[in-house]
Structures are given as structure tokens and as C-alpha cells.
């Protein structure tokens, strides 16, 4: 059983839900992914699931892993997230389920995603609040992957590409997925969403873009943020 906590209650809708799966959080095990999709899918007219692309390897490279090993692990993590998501959608009877589980890399085929990514990169370079949020989130992810080793600005420079590549999903879901309204669903609040939702940023969300935090009721009760098993890419907090 899950609950959905909308960032703005007035923005509630049932149009399109975009589910972000993270290779860097232990909760995204096959059973959790299946339960989450089974819970969300009937509540919206359409559903898509997104998984980080090759950029996921940057967090491991920044944490000191050799690139070839980082890429290998990121590719394996992608498969571990994708397969249960496709199976869940297939079992729910969603036509052509594999089309609805997409890596950020595949999204580059879409002109709306590419245009949004250009805007996101520009915002990172020119908007101090977006930049700060991106770097804070990157530092946290790399710090967890680095197992307590200090994270340098140079490490963040490498891995921040990972966080920036996700921004279009937070700002332009309606355009990229062809919906009037789209809610991006993630398991926790992030400073990036807060910065985008704030009207003071140069990065504005498209009309119809909303956000919500999804929680499993069991974890609300016992207060744990993680499952006990390791993540697909073993980074704890994101």
C-alpha cells in the first residue's frame, strides 16, 4: 500500500504519471517496483517509467571506480530496474509495455527532451539556485558511493551531468510524454524540485507539470527510508 503526497494539492490529476526509478537506492528491488507500478497504474490514464541512462556511471567514476567497471555496473543496474518494470506493465495489460519503460539515453530521440536538456544545462550554468541544488544532490550521491571518502569539486563537476540529465523529466513531462498534465513521482523530496517549483528560478516547469512523493505505508510506520538489501548501484541515500 502506498500514499501519494502531492507537492501542490491543487495540482492533483489523473492524466499521466511518470515514475522515476533510481539505481542508487536500495528500495528499488523487483518486488517494490512491481508493487509500486501495480498501485500507480490504475490511478492514472497513462504511465511511463524512467531509468537513468549512461550518466549513472558518472557517480561511480567520481567515486573512484574505473570507467569500464562503472559503465558495466550502470548497465547491469539498468537491466535490474527495467525488467521488473516491463513485466509489471505487461501483467497489468499495458499494450507494448517496453515502450513505457525508458532510459534517459533513449529519451534523446525526442526533440522535446533534447530542447529541455539544453535549457537545463543553461540553467545550471546561469541560475545560482539551480546550480546549488544540482551540486548538493550530486555531492550526496557521490559521497555515498565514495564510502566516506571526501568528495571534491572536481568529482562533482564529473557527476553533476547525472543530475542535470534528469531535469527535463522534472520540468517537461507533459511535452516529452504527450500528456496535458504529468506528475513526476519519486520516493523523496529533492532540492532540485523545490528550486524548479519556486517561481524565482529561470527554469520553469511546463504547464501541467506537477510532482508527488510516493511512500510505502510500512516504511511510514517504522520510519525506515531504505530496504535492508543493497541498491543496484550501491549508493544509499538518493
Amino acid at each position, binding site marked *: 500500500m502506498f500514499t501519494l503526497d502531492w507537492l501542490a494539492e491543487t495540482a492533483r490529476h489523473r492524466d499521466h504519471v511518470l515514475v522515476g526509478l533510481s539505481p542508487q537506492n536500495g528500495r528499488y528491488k523487483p518486488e517494490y517496483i512491481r508493487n509500486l507500478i501495480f498501485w500507480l497504474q490504475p490511478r492514472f490514464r497513462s504511465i511511463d517509467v524512467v531509468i537513468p541512462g*549512461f550518466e549513472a*556511471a558518472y557517480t561511480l*567514476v567520481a567515486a573512484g571506480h574505473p*570507467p569500464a567497471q562503472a559503465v558495466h555496473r550502470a*548497465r547491469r543496474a539498468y537491466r535490474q530496474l527495467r525488467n521488473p518494470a516491463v513485466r509489471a506493465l505487461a501483467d497489468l495489460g499495458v499494450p507494448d509495455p517496453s515502450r513505457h519503460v525508458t532510459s534517459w*539515453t533513449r529519451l*534523446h*530521440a525526442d*526533440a522535446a527532451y533534447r530542447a529541455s536538456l539544453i535549457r537545463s544545462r543553461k540553467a545550471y550554468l546561469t541560475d545560482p539556485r539551480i546550480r546549488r541544488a544540482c551540486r548538493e544532490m550530486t555531492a550526496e550521491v557521490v559521497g555515498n558511493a565514495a564510502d566516506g571518502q571526501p568528495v571534491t569539486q572536481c568529482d562533482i563537476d564529473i557527476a553533476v551531468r547525472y543530475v542535470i540529465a534528469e531535469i527535463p523529466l522534472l520540468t517537461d513531462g507533459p511535452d516529452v510524454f504527450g500528456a496535458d498534465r504529468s506528475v513526476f513521482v519519486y520516493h523523496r523530496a529533492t532540492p532540485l524540485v523545490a528550486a524548479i517549483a519556486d517561481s524565482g528560478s529561470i527554469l520553469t516547469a511546463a504547464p501541467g507539470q506537477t510532482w508527488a512523493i510516493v511512500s510505502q505505508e510500512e516504511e511510514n510506520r517504522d520510519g525506515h527510508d531504505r530496504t535492508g538489501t543493497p541498491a543496484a548501484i550501491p549508493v544509499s541515500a538518493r
Partner: protein
Amino acid sequence: MTDTIEPELPLQYPFPLGDTGALPPLTAWAQRAKPVCPVRLPSGVTAWMLTRKDDVAQMLADNRFSRNLAEPGSPRMVGEDLTSVHDAIFNLDPPAHGRVRQVLSGWFTRRAVQRHRPLFARHAHRLLDQLSAGPNPADLVEAYSAPLPLDAMGELMGVPPELAAECRQVYPMSLDLSSTPEAVEKETDAAKQFIARLIAARRADPAPDTPVHTLLEARREGVISESEMFGTLFLIFVTSFDPLVAPLTTGPMILMLHRRQLVECVADPSLWPKAVEEVLRYFHNGGLGFPRIAREDVELNGTMIRQGDAVVVPMQAVTWDPRHYRNPERFNIHRATDGSATFGAGPHYCLGSQLARVVLQEAFSALFQRFPTLDLAVSERELPWDPNRMFTRPMQLPVTW
């Protein structure tokens, strides 16, 4: 697709792509079952699509088919694209076509283009130095395949420094088949404005030994008209970029997916020209290309093409025609056949074909001699092909080394 399932006609373009750049299944079906096949273009115009090499060769050499699409109302892919520019070499029919082509042909002969190898090698090595110093993995399109033509062709063409930034904004043109006619016209207008500024800059400050200068001189001497000079300059700038970014992306991709053949090339650099020919043969050369128009009724392979009808040709169908290429679906650098057919046939045979070969040979060899272990950082199934792009290719090519 099996022969028992007949797709509805006319086929709707763009077609779903083949796996990893292979011939689209609908094109393969048409080649087998409907060699002169009606296809509805995104503009709503219905054209005849030819898919067999012999039919295509006959049509391209037949002056009953015109290339002049400059008149309003001519069949377009989407809207007023590059074919709407008056008197571009692209739009000219003989004899005007031959007169304009002659001005530039000295630049693009097999012998003439050899002297540009050091220029392309220099830009390739500079970009590879940057790739090496940057993060690993990386997007090869952003780091190499896209900037190489912009930088190197920009220098060869004589783009002045003050217009370099605008050149990067305008090119490569997206030639997006999902675009609106208004957006296509806007893109065309932006390129026209760039070309106008380039002409003004190079009239004020000539850059001898560039194709731009050659065209300006031919205009000054009265060999070609002002609009022929403008239109042809417009066209050679379009063809200097996106048609190169596509094979600069698909080439490394297919070589990484055929590691044994790639290793052979690295060990024996004399094989790079063979690899380039097979890349040219294997992939498309701009989807359906742009239409030609029948000047009179013409019967082709049993189908009557009426005066005024549009005809389009996917050159990848030609280079995958099993009557001429054995096992066309196999990427094989040791084939006896080359990639020439991708560049067309007849009077409009691609003027830049020899230069394209030089660019690709220098680019592939520099890349893999420098990064022999270069490999895809994602599964090939994850590569983002945009079917709406006229020069379709993976828009991102994540690699590691």
C-alpha cells in the same frame, strides 16, 4: 514483416526504423512487393517511392524527371525547406545545372580533396585530445561527430570568426519531419540570413582558396547569376554538416558492434577506406531525399507515373537491393562492392562524395587509432534514433574506453 501482411497504401512516411539503422521493414517490403509504391509525405503530398536499384538508376538519369522544386506549390517533405531556394545547384536541371556545377567541380574531384586530409586530421586530433581529457564515459556525438564537421568544414569553407557562433546555431539544420511548415520555413530563413551575412563578409574580406570564394568569383565574372551563387552556397553549407554527422555517428557505432572488423582496421590502416565504403553502403543517406517531378507521363516498372507526380528514392534501398548486394543486411568491410550508390546517380550525383570519404576516413582512423578499446556505454537497443530526423542517427552515442 511477412509477405502475407499487406500494409495499407499509401505508406505513411516517416517509417518505423530498422534495428540499429538497418533498412526499415516497410522499405524492404516495398522493394519486394511494390517497387513503385505510393507514400504519403508529412506534408500530405503523395509521392511514388522507388526501391530497386535498376529503377532508381533509370529514373535519376532520365531528364523527364525534374529536380526543380523552387516554385511555390512544388511537392515538399514538410514545408518550404532547402529545396525552395531558387537556383540552388540542387534545384537546377541541365543545362544550367552543368554550368553551375562546373564552377565548383574542381574543388571536389578525387584528387583535389586529398589535400584536405591534414585539415580534417588536425581537427580530429584536437577534439580527441579534449575527449581524452574529459569525463569517461562520454557522448561521442557531442564530443566528436557533431563538432568535427562544424569546425573542419567551417574552416574549409572560410567561415569568418565573427560568424562562427551563428554558423553553430544554424547548422546542422534539423530537417525535422515532425516539424510544422512554419518551423521549417523559419529554419530555412535563418540559414538564408546566415548565407547573406557570409557573402557580405567574404565580399568585403575575400578568403581565397575556398569554395565560397570560387562561387563569388564566378558571379563577378558573370559565369553564374547572383541567385545561382546564393542558392548554391546555401546548399553546400547544408550538405557540409548533417549529412556528415550521421555517418560520423553510425560509422563508429557499427564498427564497435563488429569488433573483429574494427580490430582488423586498427591493425591494418589500409582497410579504413573499405570500412568507410561499407558504412556508406549500410546506412541511409537522408531518408527519402527530396522529391523529383515527372515532366510528362512515364511508365516505370509497370506503373504509370503521371506528369506532375512526385517521385522519391530512399538510397538505402538501393544499397540494400539483394539483386546487387549479397546479404545486404550483413555489415562486411571486405565486400567487393563499394558505397558509391548511396550518393545517387545521373547529373545530380553528389558533388561532395569524394570529400565525404576523406572526412570519414580521417575521422574513423583518428578515433580508433587513438581509442582502440572504445566501446558503447549502453546496449545498442538503448541508442536514441530519432525517426523524424531526415538524416536519422543516434542523437547520443555514449562510449567508454
